């Protein structure tokens, strides 16, 4: 009761309608955990913890693995394995899989003509993709367009990494006074051009800066 009055008297404490986040953060993750035979095991509770565990620990890597190149990542639930879905929810995952795996023959030509107007770096990509799409396409139902985007992402990520490393090196040398005025200008301009070019490519493929990264699992992210 006493607590009640303090609560109402204070503006911050007034809220008291918990967000789901606050509940999840506490009820599922903390509190006394009893173990042993006295407990009844309810299989689904383990699933709650499993799901939460996945959410808490490795959202990114699971997401990346499950929706490689998938356009609408948000709509899918990456950490639901087929076994789990079939067993507990009875929702046929197969249907979803068939949906995003339908080969659309026109796509390949489309994307090719679209990107052939691109600069050399971009043009090199669809060609590689064609090969991969041909090999993997029928077997694993990978949408060629997604593969192309995935590859672009990978290449751009690496180029970006190199750019950053070289830029750092250049800046260090400028600061050490090892370069004369013209050299600084030339190097700066080169990087500026590369930067502009990368922006164009990113725009063409609808990639955002945040996407240009590699999840290296336990090592963290590349960039």
């Amino acid at each position, binding site marked *: *009761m*006493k*607590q*009640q009055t*303090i*609560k109402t008297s*204070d*503006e*911050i*404490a007034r*809220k008291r309608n*918990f967000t*789901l*986040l*606050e*509940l*999840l*953060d*506490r*009820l*599922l993750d*903390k*509190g*006394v*955990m*009893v173990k*042993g035979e*006295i*407990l*009844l095991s*309810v*299989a*689904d*509770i383990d*699933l*709650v913890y499993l*799901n*939460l565990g996945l*959410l*808490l620990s490795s*959202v990114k890597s699971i997401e990346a693995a499950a929706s490689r190149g998938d356009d609408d990542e*948000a*709509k899918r*639930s990456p950490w*639901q394995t087929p076994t789990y879905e079939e067993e*507990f*929810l009875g929702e046929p995952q197969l249907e979803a899989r068939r949906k995003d795996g339908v080969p659309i023959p026109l796509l390949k030509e489309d994307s090719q003509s679209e990107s052939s107007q691109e600069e050399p770096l971009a043009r090199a990509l669809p060609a590689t993709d064609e090969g991969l799409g041909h090999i993997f396409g029928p077997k694993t139902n990978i949408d060629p367009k997604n593969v192309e985007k995935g590859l672009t992402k990978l290449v751009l990520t690496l180029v970006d990494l190199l750019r950053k490393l070289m*830029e*750092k090196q*250049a*800046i260090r040398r400028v600061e050490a006074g090892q370069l004369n*005025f013209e050299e*600084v*200008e030339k190097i*700066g*301009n*080169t*990087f*500026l051009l590369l*930067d502009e070019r990368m922006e164009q490519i990113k725009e063409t493929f609808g990639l955002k800066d945040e996407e240009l990264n590699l999840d290296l699992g336990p090592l963290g992210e590349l960039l």
Partner: protein
Amino acid sequence: MGSSYGLYAYGLVGKNPEPLDIVGIDKKNKVYSVEGKDGCVMVSEIDIDTFQDQVKKLVSDLAGSVDTVQREAEEILQAHENVLDTLMKSTTVVPFQFGTILKDEQAALTMLQDYGEKFKSLLAKFIGRSEWGMKVYANQQEFIHYMVQIEPEFKHLEEKREGLSKGAAYLLRRKIEEELKDKALTRLAEVTEVIFHTLGKDAYEGKVNTTLPQKLTGKKKEMILNTVYLVEREKVATFCKQGKRLMEHYGAMGLDLEVSGPWPPYSFTC
């Protein structure tokens, strides 16, 4: 009920509370206490099958998209919390993790015996105290933007850049960006440290929990600090006032601070 019968356990209290009128997690059966030598387990009868269905729903919602979790599924978590909340108003509670289901009253007694010492020390620690949380969110870009405006050294660099030719200016910009990012990260780390300690002054105990991924929080800003405190009843008001002060101070820097409580001391049970 047969095999489907179980006892949902909410938490532990020291003394047998007054006759209670709290509806359990199934919204049907009343909460009652199973009394042992040193404490009581608060339980209510549940139908396991029904509960299982509700949990399934929660799982599928959790696994789906967190921001669109149905109210309905959330209710089951809220129900667990509500029972403890009501108990907390009149007595000290040691909260259990969600989904603790005992076989029967005998099992509850066995548990009281097995965990007797642990429960006793937790009860002693929790008397007259409750848990309060503070979560801090920040957007790095926004914070950098803020820093540039208040730090004269960066303004100076920016002016210097304007006088340079294109290529050299590009390199200098990169250098500034790099430095800003480093500085912002260091500054944010300092800020979280300060926030944690400032609030901790009015608390009995403080803890830093792991920050939650954006996917789970559903916020635009990234969580940079997730702390919990065990606060004495008498100090709650000062604690909250301090929280509010921090909110205003760091809010001006583009940081979002969220205080929540009072909670049963979930985070201090180990």
